[in-house]
């Protein structure tokens, strides 16, 4: 498994992070060290073993679709600095 500066930059971009040159230089050996150690799980025989995405089986979580009180528009917008005409105002999409 080769982890390079370019891989880290690419992964960071996917995760919406911009790393400084210093951060990349610091992270590269650390992440190599971590991934090399974590790769040991390859040694476990998991043929025909299903993955567990929960520690206990998920119970039926479907509920009746009943209308209930929820946050008001004012409450939902009360914590943002960027709003206009009762809506969240976001950055440019296109």
């Amino acid at each position, binding site marked *: 498994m080769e982890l390079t500066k370019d*891989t*880290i930059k690419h*992964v*960071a971009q*996917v*995760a*919406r*992070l*911009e*790393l400084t040159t210093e*951060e990349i230089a*610091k*992270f590269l050996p*650390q*992440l190599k*060290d*971590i*991934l090399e*150690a*974590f*790769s*040991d*799980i*390859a*040694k*476990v025989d*998991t043929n025909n*073993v*299903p*993955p*567990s*995405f*929960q*520690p*206990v089986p*998920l*119970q039926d*979580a479907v*509920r009746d679709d009943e209308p209930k009180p929820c*946050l008001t528009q004012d*409450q*939902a917008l*009360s*914590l*943002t*600095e*960027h709003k206009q005409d009762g809506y*969240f*105002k*976001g*950055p*440019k*999409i*296109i």
Partner: protein
Amino acid sequence: MSGSMNVKQFIDEVGKKKIDPLIHIKTALQEVKKANKEFHFMNIIADEQAIKQAEVIKKNPKGKLAGLPVSIKDCIVVKGLESKAGSAILEGYKPVYDATVVQRLKDEGAIIIGKTAQDAFGFGTFSVNVGNNMEIPLNPIDKERSCGGSSGGSGAITKWASFPHISIGESTGGSIAAPAAFCGVFGLCPTYGRVSRYGLMDYASSLDKIGPMASSSYDLALSLSVIAGHDPNDATSLKEPADDYLAAIKKEVNGLKVGIIKESFGEGIDPQVSKEVKKAIEVLKKKGLGAKEISLPLVAKYGVSCYYLIAMSEASTNLAKYCGMRYGRHEKLEGNFNEYFTKVRSKHFNQETKRRIIIGTFARMAGYRDAYYIKAAKVRTKIISEYKAAFKEVDVLISPTMPIISPKFDDIKKLTPLQNYMMDIMTVGPNLAGLPHCSIPIGNVEGMPVGMMAIGDHLEEKKVLQVASVFG
């Protein structure tokens, strides 16, 4: 003032109107504020809210926790009280609702005194990975040492408080047990799904559990009886009714069988810590508990890798929502959405948060997903089976909670990130399998506390608490 009164006596006295909860909370808040300047265990103290709650309870002192000061880990939302999960990116976020656990505590008369310090989003074992420009909480026994993490503030205030108090922590991979061990208090992480996660700022959704930290097994049982139980607002909440935990700790322990985890006393464990835990096991044997050795080789060998791959993968998706738009820190709206989100996240996430997001994103990417994330989820299945087989033979598994006593900050600085992660070797197993576990203060080494961990099968909090009750 409550003096050296315990939680039970205090609540009884408030109920009988012999203690004025308003006067009591004012004194407690003053003490917390003063101590917090020295130990930094609180991110925010809920002055006004606490006093308002106390005024209500004074008029009507009812409830299982009437008038009791309770602190809440920063990642659990409290209505109107800044809740930032220890991260600068959530500065200024004042939730518009209470987490289910907070609501249940308030309904029983508990007074919320503030939010406790933690590693940002729970990313740490020593509470040193606090948010940018935030203070690291210090161990009240020795300020040069860590109070453990990530619920470090909860452990520290629980150890420090001379007034009756309970803290609510949260564990993903050991974040209740580790600070309980390092601070010398009791910490109970319940079965996954036993306590609602509604209102918890997720670290890793398939691993996160909310649980109490306190000075005795009674306090754990009492607070768990308040917060446990099904919640329709959390799809992973278990429907089984909660048990009578207070009745459980009154039961004799002599019928229980304990399994001593063989691998937990080997290489990498401070021999002095092992010695203390072995002494505690002798105490249990004298109480009539049967003991046998149990081997859990998969947990010991692959637990840390399996845990971190899953936890970081889930964290990297959970943290995608923090982008400077609806709450928390904002920046000037400039550039396109990619540039804006990237700017906010890069500026306000700390180093460990970035590190975990990058590993987690990598582990889920096309080409690597099967080898890391999916493989780890399969190994998790085998680890759960290994525990389930053990619980066919014994009721409770025993190990040290942490391989060492609380380290000094100077020594923590020397650790690489991987060495940091390896410190969780004892605690990741029960967390991966969603098993209830409790760190019990059982001894001291060099004046610092040692914790012993008791692990039970799913929904067997009763047995874990029974074992804890032998020690206080």
